[in-house]
């Protein structure tokens, strides 16, 4: 953790990390850990590029190329944040429950702004349903358990992945009454289609990349 913070990334490396985070978030059924440091650095990078462009000579061809690059980066960053927001909205009771029951020592999956947004969204939805319907129902039916009412992310959905760091004995199917445990070795560079639940920790650690 400390090593990561001191690592200085070149702009190219930073954008590469952004793209990896973006793809992981896009293809994962679950909300992943928020890469706030990457978001911060990319925003700084965009600001830096904008300032450079203001200073450049008008009509310089570099401007066109840099503008294109900036639009690309802005698209990836926006798409990354949108993916996250969509999942936060879709699974809000479970995400907020996870956040509520998180021990103080553990880092949050959400950025501070996302926590605020999630809480406002939840409150907005719940008061909406109360006002329009629940309050007008018979007394014993006015309660709504949002955690039960809203679906959870489907961790058993299948995802495509590429292996970045070789893994041995990855559990594919746990042992049940009918079958023995089924494990595989994941070679570096190989691509697989697997159930997300089984490789979720590997996505979090960066050992595999969702594609």
């Amino acid at each position, binding site marked *: 953790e400390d090593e990561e913070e001191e690592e200085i990334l070149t702009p190219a490396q930073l954008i590469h990390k952004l793209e990896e985070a973006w793809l992981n978030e896009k293809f994962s059924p679950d909300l992943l850990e928020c890469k706030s440091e990457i*978001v*911060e650095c990319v*925003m*700084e990078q*965009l*600001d830096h590029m904008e300032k450079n462009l203001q200073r450049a000579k*008008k*009509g310089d061809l570099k*401007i*066109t190329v840099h*503008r*294109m690059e900036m*639009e*690309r980066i*802005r*698209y990836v*960053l*926006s*798409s990354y*944040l*949108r993916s996250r*927001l969509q999942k936060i*909205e879709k699974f809000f009771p479970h995400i907020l429950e996870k956040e509520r029951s998180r021990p103080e020592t553990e880092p949050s999956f959400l950025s*501070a*702004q*996302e926590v*605020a*947004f999630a809480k*406002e*969204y939840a409150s*907005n*939805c719940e008061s*909406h*349903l109360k*006002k*329009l*319907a*629940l309050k*007008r*129902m*018979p007394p*014993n*039916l006015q309660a*709504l358990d949002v955690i039960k*009412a809203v679906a959870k992310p489907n961790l058993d959905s299948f995802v495509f992945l590429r292996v970045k760091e070789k893994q041995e004995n990855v559990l594919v199917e746990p042992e049940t009454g009918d079958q023995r445990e089924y494990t595989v070795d994941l070679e570096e560079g190989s691509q697989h289609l697997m159930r997300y639940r089984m490789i979720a920790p590997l996505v979090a650690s960066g050992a595999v990349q969702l594609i």
Partner: protein
Amino acid sequence: MFCEKVVELIRELQRATDGQLPPFNEDGIREVLEEMKALYEQNQSDVNEAKSEEKTDLIPTIKFRHCCLLRNKRCILAYLYDRMLRIRSLRWEYGSVLPSEIRFHFAPEETEWFNQYKKSLATYMRAIGGDEGLDITQDMKPPKSLFIEVRCLKDYGEFEIDDGTTVLLKKNSQVRVK
């Protein structure tokens, strides 16, 4: 038959394809809530009767009415929640200001929900970083080409673009701009 009205509400939404928002069915909701009230009151009286006179043969009817109540509740909430999700999509599709034809289909409470959602979203986007944050409702598609073709409909004269270059806009001429 019970719950028919509420299922009709759901069908109304099913028929509106492409995430379109039909007008809010105030009357439909009211009718369903009235049905729920009637079912509940009938159950209250039957429960009292069953308790005081120990009549167990009322119990199946009580259970049946309770199931209808639960179904009505579930369907009403589904109707309202699905509309809410469609309204949410409208923010992303049209921006902060919705066309009036669409706004007329909102219930007052839905307008309130929409306004609150807009506010939360704006607060979130401002806080993303940098001076003004990032408007993530823009850049919805990957950038394809930096230039677009523009045809001038009227004589405008000279026009200065963001990057400082000027373009001469003459009627019917076509120009590639950023």
